[in-house]
């Protein structure tokens, strides 16, 4: 049994109504887990709580065995969070941004410098390393943000709609990168509205509705549970989300 990368138990967050409702969820180490759900289902709220950006009302979060509520700094060292809107500074260059993120995560300069070059080259951004982020397109910003998420070599990568606004080429690059991370033993949780991405990339899929996990498993397990061997993920998602 592989080590659990993330364990959520009874995780709860309520605004006017419950956004996340006693959610129990486990992500195994070295897998790509796709968290799906309709708009407002609680996906982003869940991930923000895992990333330490939002305090839960109740429940527990364990990241590789570390209690993230008791020792948030230790948990954060293992996590990278990439939201759908890239978190960048318009006035910094791509390289300065990566240097800044490496500094935040305490990566040694001798490691961070070559790693930044490797990532930017891999994402076809090396030639633009000294251009300020304000001059970048949406896709280029997303690539720099992704490089920022990877520069400290996180064990758990949390991606919220990582393909939003990317062209086909850039989306392909990101998908390849995710597959490569998982092959190297990294763990990824992503949310996406592009079900084909989840269908092709994810080891396991969780479907969340009204803050609760309503289905979970591999594609085959979800099909079996739904009693329809030939159903697409889209069919199952629509059936479960509307149920």
């Amino acid at each position: 049994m592989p080590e659990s990368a993330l364990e959520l138990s009874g995780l709860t967050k309520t605004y006017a109504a419950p956004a996340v409702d006693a959610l129990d969820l486990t992500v195994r180490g070295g897998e790509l887990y796709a968290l799906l759900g309709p708009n407002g289902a609680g996906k982003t709220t869940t991930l923000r709580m895992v990333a330490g950006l939002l305090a839960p009302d109740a429940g527990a979060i364990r990241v590789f065995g570390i209690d993230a509520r008791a020792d948030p700094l230790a948990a954060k060292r293992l996590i990278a969070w990439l939201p759908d809107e890239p978190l960048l500074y318009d006035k910094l260059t791509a390289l300065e941004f990566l240097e800044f993120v490496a500094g935040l995560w305490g990566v040694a300069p001798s490691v961070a410098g070559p790693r930044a070059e490797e990532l930017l080259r891999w994402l076809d951004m090396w030639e633009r390393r000294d251009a300020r982020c304000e001059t970048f397109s949406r896709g280029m910003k997303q690539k720099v943000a992704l490089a920022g998420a990877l520069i400290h070599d996180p064990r758990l990568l949390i991606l919220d709609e990582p393909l939003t606004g990317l062209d086909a080429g850039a989306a392909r690059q990101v998908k390849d990168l995710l597959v490569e991370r998982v092959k190297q033993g990294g763990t990824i949780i992503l949310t996406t509205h592009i079900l084909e991405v989840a269908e092709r990339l994810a080891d396991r899929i969780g479907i969340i509705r009204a803050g609760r996990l309503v289905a979970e498993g591999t594609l085959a397990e979800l099909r079996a549970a739904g009693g329809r061997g030939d159903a697409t993920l889209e069919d199952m998602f629509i059936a479960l989300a509307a149920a």
Partner: protein
Amino acid sequence: MTLFGPGSFLWLVRHEVRIAWRGRSKGPTTRLQALAARAPLLLLAIVPTVIGIGVGWVLRRLPDAPSPKVLAVVSMVFAGLFLLMTFRAASQVIRSFIERGDLDLLLGAPLPPGRILGAKAVGVYASVGLPFVILFAPFLLTSAILGHPRWLGVLAMIGVTSVLATSTAFVAARLLTRALGVRRARVIMQVGGAVLGALAFLLSQAFNLAPQASEATLRSLRTLPAPLDWPAKAAFASPLLLGFIGIASAAAWGATRFAAANFGASEETRVTAAARPPRPFRSGLTATLVRKELRLLARDTETLTQVLLRLVYLVPVVLLIFRGDPSGVFPGPRLAAAGTVFAGMLAASLAWLTVCAEDAADLIDAAPVRAAAVRRAKLIAACAPSVVIVVLAALGLATRDRLAALALLVCGCIAALTGALLQAWFGTPAPRSNFRRRQQGSIVLGVGELVLAASWSGVAALLARGSLWALAPGLLAATILAGADAARRAPPPPASRARAGNAIGRLWKRRSTA
């Protein structure tokens, strides 16, 4: 198509003015905010009207024909106005034609491109000329009613000046963006405009700051030779000159239309940076954070010029408050006081930018760093420029007045730190672009910031004179800080807790656990 119908020239002008106006103000979300948003408009209408009518009444007995000396002064004012308008217009041109990025949308519409670009150009004219028309119209109209109809020519001359300045700005902006790229061109225009604005303000205060020198200059001023006095003569309704300058401005308008037609999104692609050999990364959390904050501050020229302009406007006030030195004595205490206010207000403004206007709060919140470490680094970055300026100024001052230098050094650094702290304790998270409106959220904070800086300034002035009365403003500053500290420790009301959704806001609230 009607005159104001969708797609018409005036409809497009209205769109431009609306976008420009909304770019300067925050959209209201409540009825109260909507009313508050209209308050500046109301003030803009009332204050010049009241003052203009009053001044018009006071000057009603002046002769209708101005003296040569008045003509010389008015000509110089128009020359200054022309320069000021040119820089302002150039910034507007770059913003409207390039940065807003709506040209593709507009030019994609089934409308003649000339109409679209002309409307954009008129939007720039309006934003440059209208404030001055609004400012002077009440005075000139009152004067016209009270027997000086010739003075109405000033209004026409303001319009003509704005057309000439905007046309010059179009050409300058086009040349600069082609030669240097958009970013550098914008920086030059913003800094130039800010320096001119500050100079104009300081000149307007010349009689207060240096009365003897100002009077001597005015006495020596006689007449200006033609054509330097043409603007003033045209302003006082010399029909021939006004017509001549009007024709020149019409030609300039034509040139502007031509320049506008060639202006646009193609300029955007020039914002590229040549890649340099990468330099090694540097380490250290505090250094990383401080470096990032200083880089962001240094590169945000627009906000930085706003910060510095506010400080320039404060300096004459402080110098006036602490005037009264016997003639011939070096004004060390006054300089120490002015330097202290400068340091305090600069640090407070920068603290707002570093702490409240964090662009990627979630990124920092998600990083494995203690909130206290982030807070400390942000305060260091906010105070660093003030401390450097204070140290340099104190070194200079020490050559003439050592006690004043010491007072400036001590009080300037304390004012910087406490000003930044106050902002860090109570500043509300907001986008960087909200800098000009940062004090709308809390008038108490704005007043507190000012009183605190003024108190330290009083301490500096009195300390530099060796007076024990320095304890009094020091006590006031300490009381303000103690009150602020008690207020921040008090639990916030539920409503404000709910509003504090931004991560950096939480970051400050989390300090007790970090």
